[in-house]
């Protein structure tokens, strides 16, 4: 996600909001955000990412996670969210989706940025964009 944030800073600021959802409690989300903010500042000090442009939400009972069908009930830690990424338009309609095979499998930051740009501009996301 950090790589996508760099794309966001270059092309998408003001057009795209970024939301992240997990079952983790807010304290863990705060630690995560502090860590990625620090990493970004060390990695790219010339990019002002403070506050870090990701809003993390806590879904401790996996209510929304289940409503979206993105739950992983079989994890050793209990029910967690499967790694899925969506681009949603301002009406709440899903315009692009990437269902990861694992936590390490995330969409290309450039492909995700292109899809988000298209949706922000009111265009359809071309079928050629990697999406699954």
């Amino acid at each position: 996600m950090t790589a996508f944030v760099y794309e966001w800073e270059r092309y998408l600021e003001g057009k795209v909001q970024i939301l992240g959802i997990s079952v983790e409690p807010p304290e863990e989300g705060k630690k995560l955000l502090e860590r990625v903010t620090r990493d970004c500042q060390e990695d790219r000090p010339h990019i002002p990412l403070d506050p870090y442009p990701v809003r993390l939400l806590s879904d401790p009972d996996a209510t929304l996670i289940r409503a979206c069908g993105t739950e992983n009930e079989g994890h050793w830690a209990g029910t967690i969210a499967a790694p899925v990424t969506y681009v949603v338009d301002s009406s709440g309609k899903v315009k692009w989706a990437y269902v990861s095979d694992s936590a390490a499998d995330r969409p290309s930051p450039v492909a995700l940025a292109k899809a988000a740009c298209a949706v922000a501009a009111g265009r359809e996301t071309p079928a050629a964009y990697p999406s699954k």
Partner: protein
Amino acid sequence: MAKLTVGDQFPAAILNDIDGVAVNFPAVFKNAPATVLFFYRGRW
């Protein structure tokens, strides 16, 4: 496989962000022309 897919309307729900602010779905999508929303286990 996620049930929610391209063309679907995002379901309604209210969650809190990590600062305790309530976030209403799908109303939150009106905050920007587009939203990137990702589900994560933690520590991506």
